């Protein structure tokens, strides 16, 4: 694989160079070490390494709230206005392998399932992803249980591996090559490649699989007691869904003003009671048991049946965020073992 190296002291000037041609989004530290993906300013700090950002870059493809159209006038005379398509290309830095893989899962829904969602598709087409191999996985991580790895390259254009004073950069696509063209980076040596490989292997070693995802897909049962077991303490807060890089469900609502308004979509979750409640009151998923079953079955069975791959990449955010300590790894372990 073709690769180059970049001294850490040169990262800032490289990013500044990118900012001349692209909108650049990268991890930035907020208070108390919490990291978010935010658009970088011309003179702002560039911090590639650090904690896994608290949210995935999902929101740069399906924003938490997004205008679908604006309407002007009243019911007697109305005109519609669609939002503009992006005019500038975006580069996202520091993308974790699990999150890049998660975007390929969102592609299944937004681009492959029947009609194409152009709002999502245009952002995908105009965004390049620069990955960062995970050196030390977080405590909730389980990418190796769902066919991933802390240094997987799927969906990425470049993959950075931290070699101490420099990064090893694997070139994974033409779009990635363009980002480093002309920057004068030295080609990676065999020693650099070995060091990157060793680092990847060490990270994998720190993450023994918790369950067998393939076995789970076969063992997700409709009437298993496991659903009620976890539903009993689930608060239906939706934190798991909102932090999940593959959860994509949304609501569509209108916001009216005196002379018009906007129609927008916003993140929603199958964990909420009224998610499937119809106008006249009928609700196919009456209790939290059905909703817990839906979320797990959808990710580990239904999507496997539909697209041949899980709707989970093991980022572990749901595990770490759940206020009542529902650990998805344990849920799947229970499903696999058909316990409870």
């Amino acid at each position, binding site marked *: 694989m073709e690769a180059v190296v970049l001294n850490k002291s040169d990262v800032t000037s490289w990013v500044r160079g990118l900012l001349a041609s692209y909108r650049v989004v990268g991890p930035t530290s907020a208070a108390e070490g919490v990291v978010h993906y935010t658009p970088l300013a011309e003179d702002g700090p560039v911090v590639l390494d650090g904690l896994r950002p608290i949210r995935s870059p999902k929101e740069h493809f399906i924003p938490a709230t997004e205008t*679908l*159209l604006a*309407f002007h006038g009243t*019911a*007697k*005379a*109305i005109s*519609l*206005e*669609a*939002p*503009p*398509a992006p*005019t500038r290309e975006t580069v996202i830095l520091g993308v974790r392998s699990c999150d890049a893989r998660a975007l390929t899962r969102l592609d299944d*829904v*937004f681009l492959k*399932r*029947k*009609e*194409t*969602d*152009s*709002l999502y*598709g*245009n952002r995908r087409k105009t965004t390049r992803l620069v990955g960062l191999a995970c050196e030390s996985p977080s405590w909730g991580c389980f990418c190796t249980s769902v066919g991933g790895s802390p240094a997987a390259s799927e969906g990425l254009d470049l993959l950075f591996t931290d070699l101490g004073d420099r990064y090893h950069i694997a070139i994974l696509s033409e779009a990635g090559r363009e980002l480093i063209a002309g920057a004068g980076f030295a080609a990676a040596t065999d020693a650099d490649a070995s060091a990157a490989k060793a680092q990847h292997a060490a990270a994998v070693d720190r993450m023994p699989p918790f369950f067998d995802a393939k076995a789970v897909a076969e063992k997700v049962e*409709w009437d298993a007691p496991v659903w009620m077991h976890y539903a009993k303490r689930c608060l239906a807060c939706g934190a798991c869904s909102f932090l999940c890089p593959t959860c*994509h*469900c*949304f*609501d*569509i*609502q*209108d916001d*009216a003003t005196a002379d*018009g*308004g906007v*129609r927008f*979509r916003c993140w*929603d979750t*199958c964990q909420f009671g009224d*998610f*499937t*409640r*119809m*106008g*006249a*009151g*009928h609700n*196919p*998923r009456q209790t939290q048991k*059905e909703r817990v079953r*839906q979320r797990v*079955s*959808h990710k580990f*069975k*239904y*999507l496997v*049946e*539909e697209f041949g791959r899980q709707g989970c990449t093991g980022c572990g955010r749901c595990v770490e965020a759940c206020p009542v300590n529902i650990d998805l790894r344990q849920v799947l372990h229970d499903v696999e073992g058909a316990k409870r």
Partner: protein
Amino acid sequence: MSDAGNLYVPNLAVIDRIVEETWDTRTFRAVFTDAGMRERFSYHPGQFQEVSVFGVGEATFCLASSPTRTGYVEFSAKKVGALTSALHELSEGETVGIRGPYGNWFPYDMMQGKNLLFVGGGIGMAPLRSLLNFCLDRRGDYGHIDIFYGARTPGDLCYTKEFEAWRSAPDTSLYLTVDKGGPGWEGKVGVVPAYVREIAPASRNAVAITCGPPIMIKFTLPELGKLGFSDEQIITTLEMKMKCGVGKCGRCNIGHTYVCLDGPVFTYAQLRKLPPEF
């Protein structure tokens, strides 16, 4: 530059006729503002659309009109929530948004040459009306048509102005019934499944198409079974909560089946294979 491919931008349509079907249900006839869209919006009986009242939101309605009757689309709305209440506030001449058509449709080609048994209850008659009027407009393509239609009271029956046309169509029978009679009602009193049992339409070379309240469906299916209808010969259409209508918003799945994409029309044989979550 606006994004022309945006799936969520509806077509504007003017409500040109509102029919007061019952005390809580109205049928709206809408004509697309754009003349080209009137031509392009072609659909099949059984498909659905997303209808919006700007400033209130969108909801899912089956196309209640038949594509054989061109120039407009119709949908019937029972006043149950915010959006349907807003629809009921609209006057003729006002504008709504329409996206669609979405979903699959009744297999009307496969039904050719067969006897048809329609079994509808309440507002569930809306999708059946699309297929029924379609078949009546191509009367020669289909065999005998039996129409069973029931509601709670005479005042809850929709499409009453069309009963005469249905009744007088060649080789067509209309069986109306209400759970509870009232002043001026001289017709049948009783539930739909019992009426089906009494008339006992033949299942040979026939297809049953049913839509209505779950309780009606529940008791109609065994009656159809006793008449010899196989699960493959019974077709229904499902109602599920939907937002996008195009398989993105994640609301209408039953197992890996998306009602908006794979449905809303299913045979009873197909439904039996789905998880019981609808």
